[in-house]
């Protein structure tokens, strides 16, 4: 007979269950991603997951932590999958491997491992790539839509390309890669085109980038499911999307010729992934409900600023890292009122 302390009964919940449900919620986005950008993501995810588990196991062993308990929590896999989703599908293998290894070893474990990392590990890994290998990160494939199939690679050919860096002879890099819609828009606007001209190319779809709009909608669906399953709560995603939508609506209404509208920003790039899956990483987010709203809004706002006036096409990663750094400050000023204390 074991003597326990109250409460003697607890909910059947665990860190592993939380992470597993997050992975399920990513499925629609992954499927859409594969539909529009080919099977490259599958290879990247496998590479990333393998690297993450290996790196996690080595560091856990070095730190003398129980291997099975922490390897099975699923947190390293989430980091790997999120990173893989941010990379171009045909990016060379060492890109995802080095980013994931950096994320797990430096961003996560050197700060204390699960629950103790002040910065979002996936975004640290991505930021390292973004400043170290910017050229490779812009080599996105155009979405595969009927009549537009410029790069129709099978799974094997995709894997070979990722590992060797050499395309099958019938393709050439220049012919099949294209910038992301956010990138294209930036470049076109910088060349003096109006918003209408800049957004009229084949890269642009109904709301935002072609293909990207569907990936973002699928991500949104997964995110809403996470909300319903009570794995995440609404404060961060809603505040983040508001932080993105409000300034873009203001700028668009002032000068629709030079600024993209809110719909383009909400469905372009990694907006939804950032709002529902990256910024909601609780470890590196603010604590209280009010704090989380400040945190989310800050990410949205900084993302908009970077996208519009900054040096990178998408700003989610840097915005998340900047707001991660602001979390202790936010937490200090957003402690909720305790029951029975003066309002």
């Amino acid at each position, binding site marked *: 007979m074991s003597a326990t*302390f109250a*409460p003697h009964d607890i909910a059947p*919940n665990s860190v592993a269950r*939380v992470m597993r449900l997050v992975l399920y919620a990513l499925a629609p986005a992954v499927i859409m991603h594969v539909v529009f950008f080919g099977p490259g993501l599958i290879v990247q995810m496998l590479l990333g997951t393998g690297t993450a588990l290996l790196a996690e196991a080595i560091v856990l062993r070095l730190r003398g932590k129980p291997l099975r308990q922490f390897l099975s929590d699923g947190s390293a896999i989430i980091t790997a999958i999120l990173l893989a989703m941010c990379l171009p599908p045909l990016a060379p293998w060492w890109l995802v491997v080095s980013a994931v290894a950096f994320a797990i070893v430096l961003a996560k474990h050197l700060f204390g491992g*699960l629950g103790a990392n002040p910065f979002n590990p996936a975004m640290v890994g991505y930021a390292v790539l973004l400043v170290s290998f910017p050229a490779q990160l812009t080599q996105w494939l155009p979405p595969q839509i009927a009549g537009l199939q410029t790069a129709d690679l099978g799974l094997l050919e995709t894997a070979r390309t990722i590992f060797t860096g050499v395309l099958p002879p019938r393709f050439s890099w220049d012919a099949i890669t294209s910038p992301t819609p956010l990138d294209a828009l930036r470049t076109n606007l910088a060349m003096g085109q109006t918003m209408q001209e800049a957004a009229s190319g084949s890269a642009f779809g109904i709301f935002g980038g072609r293909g990207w709009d569907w990936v973002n909608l699928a991500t949104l669906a997964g995110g809403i499911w996470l909300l319903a399953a009570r794995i995440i709560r609404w404060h961060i995603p809603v505040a983040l999307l508001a932080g993105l939508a409000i300034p873009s609506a203001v700028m668009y209404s002032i000068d629709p010729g030079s600024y993209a509208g809110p719909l383009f920003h909400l469905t372009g790039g990694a907006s939804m992934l950032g709002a529902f899956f990256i910024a909601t990483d609780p470890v590196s987010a603010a604590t209280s409900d009010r704090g989380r709203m400040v945190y989310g809004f800050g990410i949205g706002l900084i993302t908009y600023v970077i996208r519009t006036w900054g040096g990178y096409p998408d700003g989610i990663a840097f915005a998340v890292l900047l707001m991660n750094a602001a979390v202790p400050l936010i937490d200090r000023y957003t402690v909720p009122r305790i*029951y*029975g204390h003066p309002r």
Partner: protein
Amino acid sequence: MSAGIAVFGGLRLDTHKRSSTLRALRQAAPPAEVVLPLDQHSDGVTAATVKPGDTVLLGQPIAQPQSDTGAWLHATVSGRVTAVEPRPAPHRQGRPTLCIVIANDGADRHDPANSPVDYRTLEPMQLCEHIGRGGVVGLGGAMFPTATKLLQAQATTGVHLLLNGAECEPWISCDEMLMRERAQDVVLGARILCHALQTARCTVAIENDMPDAHSALTAAIAAAGAEEPKVAIELAVVPRVYPAGGERQLITTLTDLEVPHDGLPSDVGMVCQNVGTAAAVARWIRDGEPLISRIVTVTGSGVREPANLEVRLGTPMSHVIAECGGYLEGVTQRIMGGSMMGVALPQDSLPIIKGTNCVIAATAEDLHPRGAEMPCIRCGNCSFVCPALLLPQQLHWHAQAGDLPALERYGLMDCIECGCCDYVCPSQIPLAQRFRDAKPALAANIASRQQASLSKARFEGRQDRLDRLEAERRAKLEEKRKAVKK
């Protein structure tokens, strides 16, 4: 008073009350020996008035309070006192506390000194004192002396009496059974307490899944209203949310008022008593029967016939389990109280005390076990469910670091230890236990600081006084000098 505003945070837990409410409430046979701890109240001192070898009658006082937080204790069987010695007690996690042991002679010879009184002829102060003599304490589990609580609340005029029948712990059904089968006792208790508080306003709060208790109480209130129309008793239904039955949570649910963190319910014009306490008051006043028994829920998948029993205080728990058909196979855990806030029992020979509302013999299927503790991932589930609006995850960090100022700032002392945070934690961190462990050090720190500031104030007061005297002396001297010069 409108019900419907949800309590802050909280949980919707699956209830396990059905098995214990299928059978009617019945009396458990008195045991051969009762063990009565002297400290069956929150704190304060009670001294034994009998010694080994004394013969005692049923209901005879055997221990007397030495302070206003102590409570009278009565013999719960007639017979001979065999020992006054430390015995293991359930409310001390099985550690020994001074107990009076009485061998039952089986005759149930009543103490003739206990007789019914007409409460309406008593002054409120007298009535409170008389209630105290009945040994009545809060039967919801806290065991705070009822008379003391009433006297505290008398300072507030026009206080509203709130009878707490919102039994939110998922396994406990003793209050529900009491209200179903003895609604008239509850209502009479309400009238007596209203007289003691000089108020005409009383609300009985029950949960929304107690239809039988609702109809029984409605009938009893109607009958009482015909007899004594000036006391208005109303019934309020609260949502079944744990811990809506917490005193402060219930008040906020019903009135939208918050009890100040350093105050009492009477600060917002309320006084809260458990329905079982009210019924115990009624039996003492109407029948002259002091608190010698209480209703105990005996439940869990490890007991053959779960039921609610009226049990003499001091009865060993093993005797109560035997009254319910004994154990079944596979008992993994014995708990006194509920699954959320009860205490684990090291052995089943411990006595039923005034605060024992429930005994659970749980098997593996009843309680979800704790897995290996993982680090906090700061998910915030804990603060989402916290009824005190705290940030348990921050308290957890500061408790680990032993940072007393931060623990105080984040409201450790406002934690009601309901265990909601613990229940939802994906990392399965024993938060409630961490907070219980951290409280004594912080309480001592706060007390020593208050002591220090009191000493400082005293010292400064003395210094001011001395300075003033010195100044007066000098002034007088100066006057004298002037007078002499002239």
